[in-house]
């Protein structure tokens, strides 16, 4: 294996030149920001790494228009701090992958976040990273810069490439600029908690809450073996939690409504604002599984009612530790060791529908299918789409699928 060469990119012209040159010579590139998510996806074998961390800076922020544009290498912390000054936020609640990879929290870039489309608990009510993508400038595998979308909220001019490129793991184009919709930070928040629900009851309780008009913006269930690790855990029981956010009078009113919705499932306790914030950071960043590398860690999206039951099944059959976010629709499953058990995980998921991603694994485990394998027609279409943006296969080759 040859040495990997690092190329530092500090403006769009350099980015175009670097990709065009690689396209001309067929040189395979890895695309990196601050490198915090390099452990996600299939391992790369490339000759050159494009380091975009110097392609940085917020170029447009108009709080009253709810819009922000930044270069791909801009640190996420810089963006969230700027938004916080105006009491605004990235509503999709970006996951910080640092802790589960044994790295510091608070690192990572906008480009990396966009490429991985890793949304947190508020995905449930406010949508994913991709739902907030308004526009991009990017360089495709052809070494050509192109733009799509815009800076306005409502736009159907041409194909929606910004949303399509979100979550494409740098395999289609290298982002230069990303424009996002931003939203006001809720004035306050609190979390209602029901203890001791079994997985099926937790699924029903979360469904009841989401099927009410209480505007729950986070719903998660942690089985006892996970919940007991929280320092403030009251006893050895499961925790099912529901977040309410908004203006104080609204949160108060919805608390009363939600308590009556949850009453049939058990006694309800309230976590105040500070405790609520801490709880949802724990769920967002999968903190119960921090420090467990190199054990294989799965992130599974499925129908919400199926999640808690699937989690239990993975525990019983494979010895996994699991918990659910997104009202049950997101299952985090930590395997007992480095073996990913991909076939078993996907077989357990199959009856419910959805997709399982090996978010963390050893290089050997990740050499298999990290992302849910595609049915034949869709796989062929996906390969054609890849080729249309990157005909020579130079951008993060094989990161999503082998040979693509």
């Amino acid at each position: 294996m040859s040495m990997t060469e690092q190329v530092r990119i500090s403006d769009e012209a350099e980015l175009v030149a670097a990709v065009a040159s690689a396209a001309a010579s067929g040189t395979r590139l890895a695309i990196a920001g601050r490198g915090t998510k390099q452990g996600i996806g299939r391992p790369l074998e490339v000759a050159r790494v494009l380091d975009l961390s110097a392609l940085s800076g917020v170029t447009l922020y108009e709080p009253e228009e709810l819009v922000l544009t930044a270069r791909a290498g801009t640190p996420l912390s810089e963006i969230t701090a700027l938004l916080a000054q105006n009491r605004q936020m990235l509503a999709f609640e970006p996951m910080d992958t640092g802790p589960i990879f044994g790295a510091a929290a608070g690192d990572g870039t906008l480009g990396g976040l966009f490429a991985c489309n890793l949304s947190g608990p508020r995905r449930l009510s406010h949508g994913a990273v991709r739902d907030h993508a308004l526009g991009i400038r990017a360089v495709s595998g052809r070494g050509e810069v192109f733009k799509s979308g815009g800076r306005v909220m409502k736009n159907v001019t041409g194909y929606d490439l910004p949303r399509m490129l979100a979550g494409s793991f740098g395999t289609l184009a290298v982002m230069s600029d990303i424009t996002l919709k931003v939203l006001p930070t809720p004035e306050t928040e609190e979390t209602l908690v029901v203890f001791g629900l079994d997985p099926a009851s937790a699924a029903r309780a979360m469904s009841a809450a989401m099927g009410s008009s209480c505007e729950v913006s986070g719903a998660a269930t942690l089985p006892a073996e996970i919940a007991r690790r929280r320092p403030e855990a009251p006893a050895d029981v499961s925790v099912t939690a529901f977040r309410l956010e908004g203006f104080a009078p609204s949160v108060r009113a919805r608390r009363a409504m939600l308590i009556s919705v949850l009453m049939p499932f058990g006694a309800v306790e309230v976590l105040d604002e500070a405790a609520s914030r801490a709880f949802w950071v724990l769920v967002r960043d999968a903190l119960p599984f921090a420090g467990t590398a190199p054990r294989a860690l799965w992130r599974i999206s499925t129908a919400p009612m199926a999640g808690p039951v699937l989690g239990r099944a993975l525990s019983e059959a494979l010895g996994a530790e699991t918990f659910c976010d997104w009202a049950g629709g997101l299952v985090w499953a930590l395997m007992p060791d480095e073996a990913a058990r991909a076939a078993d995980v996907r077989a357990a998921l199959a009856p419910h529908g959805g997709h399982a991603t090996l978010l963390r694994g050893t290089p050997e485990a990740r050499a298999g299918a990290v992302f849910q394998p595609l049915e034949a027609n869709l796989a062929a279409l996906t390969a054609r789409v890849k080729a249309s943006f990157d005909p020579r296969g130079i951008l993060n080759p094989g990161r999503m699928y082998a040979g693509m």
Partner: protein
Amino acid sequence: MSLRLPAADESVLARRAQIIADLSAIVPGEGVIFHEREMKPYESDGVTAYKQMPLVVVLPQTTEQVSRVLKYCHAGGIRVVPRGAGTSLSGGALPLQDGVLLGMGKFNRILDIDYANRCAVVQPGVTNLGITRAVEHEGFYYAPDPSSQIACTIGGNVGENSGGVHTLKYGLTTNNVLGVEMVLITGEVVRLGGRHLDAGGLDLLAAVIGSEGLLGVVTEVTVRLLKKPDVARAVLVGFPTSEDAGDCVAKIIAAGIIPAGIEMMDRDAIAAAEAFVKVGYPLDVEALLIVELDGPEAECAHLLEEVSRIAAACNSSTLRVSRTEEERLGFWAGRKAAFPAVGRLSPDYLCMDGTIPRKQLPLVLTRMRELSARYGLRVANVFHAGDGNLHPLILYDANQPGEMDKAEAFGADILRLCVQVGGVLTGEHGVGVEKRDLMPEMFDATDLAHQQRLKCAFDDQGLLNPGKVFPTLHRCAELGRMHVSGGQVPFPDLPRF
């Protein structure tokens, strides 16, 4: 009407009888329509100025039939134009002389309502409002509400990424669809997404939603259902200037309030609406805002106070808060009737659909008045103020020679203006044929080539809805070439346009 459509393929026209016979074998009974009189209802969509009789109309009922029809057309090099309810305001479903018009109206069943997972699986011919009607007895609804929702279908909504008046808070179609089943032009069936969040793999669902029927034919849609808010209340605010109204919207949002809807109307639109429905709109204001808040009663009450305070600080001259549901609906009645109301003022009108950064509204309105004077045509404006989507209605008389061309030129100038101030050509109506030739105002050749290559990945012969969205048809082989030598793009200093 001088509309350039792709030249008809003579060899296809010559085979018409055979094509009709072959398609009749795939879709038996009354599923194939080929007599001119019976095809008449399909010759145009919501843009009735454009008319074209299709080669034949096919109305399949099953995914398998769609698959076989498309496979047949792909094998024979026959163009296909998909159609939902035909309510497009951009000519997206305009037929082609040599093309099969694939009507999806018979796909009109709701397949599953899954309240526990808050989604519904429906066929594409179900109307937008039909989804809400099917679930409202349980207190649920489907959020995007284009004004044609009584007639437009969810399949068409997927094609156009339809919006409505509540998009700032509740999103567009793309934010509310979880999955689709679709058929490619080859007849291959693919499923994207499902009942779970995030479709997985490359987000091709994002590409398909809003693709105006150019990428595939959707045969099933899984939509997200939401619980209806407890209450909705609206406040009607008049302002002496559009600047004040725009300022008020900015300050509401800066205060952290995301209303369910914020609509603005200008003096001409207010007058037309009031004359039509008589709901008590103030007539002595330059701009009228309808701000709707929804959620728990306590939240609405709290925010109505906030909004009223902000409006007063922005020089509002009149302010009314809805006290009853009837009154709230009254506030909306005028806005919702704005198009027909304007229609009464003039034999014809052209509805534009640009989006602008909201702060540019005063400038855009001023320039529009100048253009109005120059063209000698009146224009009334309704504006989805929350998301910047502007609907100028240009009044004209098609019976006056040259006036329609003048109205179209005026409309094109307005859209150019939208792009110049940082906006886009279309916020929710789609590019279709109407704005197709303006695409270079917003995108350069490289931008368009990247989009058209995506089309090639789905449809290598360009048979699905050609002549829509893109001003120039390119062969996929030509688009696919890489013009790279020695690590340099050719002519790096040459301006691209």
